[in-house]
């Protein structure tokens, strides 16, 4: 029996449900010697801002048990340089490219989205509404602001708009609903969790910004829960994200309600893990006699029809 991994996410046709997670795959095209990029479901780029950003001071990375804390600070080359260089090369790979964007204010989000949605090779825009590294409070803590950004970007965007949400909110359903009601085409659940680690030799925080975002296998059960809760209430499709290391992990997210998944920390350890995860999903579906990955979205605690 042939098992199909094809999936449609918010109108974008993907050959399989595995995307790279923003900020973990560079600009994407530089790894062609290590993995066959065209075999991925799609690429979500690192977050792009209007102007280039230098990023935070060292140290930016701290390893913890089964995970990693980071405070990169959105280092990127800015939207103009991104279009001239990386975007051109990314669009040659032949798979959907979702560009992650962030801004310091609503008008910046709109401006970047306007520029990007006029370009060839942009399949969708992912709004980074949850980067916990900017010193100001994160956007997801303000429902009105989330709505304002989504509406503003949706008004001008010619491509689907996805909102990447922070898991550190009182009610993930409420924020996902707010994004949906403002017209978003899909949501990514979830970003890293605000976290902190301290060096007991120096008595200092292990990150230059004191706190950072935690990712890796240790956060997976919490993000699976976010996806499950949101899936019960929202209609727009979900990109599940958080600590996916294997095909099993990816299938967990899909069973909880994710239409597709994005993989971050695991591909930092080895880009090849992305391909292994795709194979892993396929193997599970075959073993369970599932025809299509579509058939298992959100069916946890229910039986296959």
């Amino acid at each position, binding site marked *: 029996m042939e098992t199909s991994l094809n999936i449609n996410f918010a109108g974008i046709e993907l050959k399989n449900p595995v995307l790279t997670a923003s900020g973990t795959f560079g600009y994407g095209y530089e790894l062609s010697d290590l993995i066959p990029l065209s075999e991925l479901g799609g690429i979500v780029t690192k977050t792009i801002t209007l102007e280039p950003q230098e990023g935070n001071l060292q140290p930016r990375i701290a390893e913890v*048990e089964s995970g990693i804390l980071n405070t990169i600070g959105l280092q990127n080359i800015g939207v103009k340089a991104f279009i001239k260089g990386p975007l051109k090369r990314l669009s040659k790979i032949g798979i959907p490219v979702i560009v992650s964007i962030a801004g310091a204010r609503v008008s910046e989000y709109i401006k970047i989205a306007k520029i990007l949605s006029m370009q060839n090779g942009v399949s969708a825009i992912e709004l980074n509404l949850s980067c916990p590294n900017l010193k100001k409070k994160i956007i997801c803590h303000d429902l009105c602001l989330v709505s304002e950004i989504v509406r503003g970007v949706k008004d001008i965007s010619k491509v689907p708009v996805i909102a990447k949400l922070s898991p550190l909110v009182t009610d993930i359903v409420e924020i996902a609903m707010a994004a949906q009601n403002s017209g978003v085409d899909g949501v990514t659940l979830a970003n890293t969790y605000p976290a902190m680690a301290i060096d007991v030799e120096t008595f200092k925080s292990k990150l230059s910004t004191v706190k950072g975002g935690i990712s890796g296998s240790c956060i997976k059960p919490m993000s699976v829960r976010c996806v499950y809760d949101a899936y019960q209430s929202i209609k727009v499709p979900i990109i599940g994200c958080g600590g996916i290391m294997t095909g099993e992990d990816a299938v967990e997210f899909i069973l909880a309600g994710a239409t597709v998944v994005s993989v971050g920390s695991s591909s930092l350890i080895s880009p090849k893990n992305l391909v292994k995860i795709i194979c892993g999903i396929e193997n599970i579906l075959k073993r369970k006699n599932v025809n299509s990955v579509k058939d298992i979205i959100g069916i946890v605690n229910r039986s296959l029809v």
Partner: protein
Amino acid sequence: MRQRFDEDYEIIYNRRVQSHYFELKIKVGDVYKYCFPGQFFMISVPGVFLRRPFGICDANDKEKSVSFLYKIVGKGTEILANIKSGALKLLGPLGKGYDLESSTALNSDAYTYVGPGNNVIVAGGTGIASVHFLASRLKKKGILYYGARSKSDLLHLANFRGLGWRIILSTEDGSEGYKGYITDILSEQLESRDTIFTCGPVPMLKEVFKIAKGRNVLGFASLEEKMACGLGNCQGCAVKIRGQSKMVCKDGPVFKIEDVEL
């Protein structure tokens, strides 16, 4: 030619050199051909989340091997030191090595760099590993300035002697060579025509840079930063190079001394 590999490779040995220092030798097949001094591998250690970066200490064409020199400094290296056989996951060779004119040649024996003065290597602690590979490839031998805490922290001295390098040592406790910092002696002896190749802890590098910049000495430094991927993707290992944010893993780890802002 530049090529990177991400596979499982067999351990030839992983043995104690002295005190807390270990040498890990891996059979890598033809991968050795793509290894240049200053480059590194990311090595998976079971039981810790991220891979660890290790500078290449040597690449051997007869055994088709690469070797690494490391010190037990934490959980990862402690676990690694206890793995004596079997396979390890290696990703590499990564980064840009010592920027010599012939570094693009496949034949890494062609390190025929000839500056107007002496080739001077300045190493501190386990920084000796990356310059060891360099010393074995540089055709024109020179002087190694090598500082460590104590006599038991000085590594691979016989190798450097065997390669024909003059060795000047210092230890902080005076148990071998000059008592004090290696940069004190370097400062007295360095000539403006010399070329520096350096790797070691940040305080030492800062002092080497001050000396080199003060005398307009050409030099190359291999830097170290915490990194998650080794490929330029996580952007964790940023350093300031001529006012710009660059990645140690991808744009380095070796940079021109005059460009580095530590």
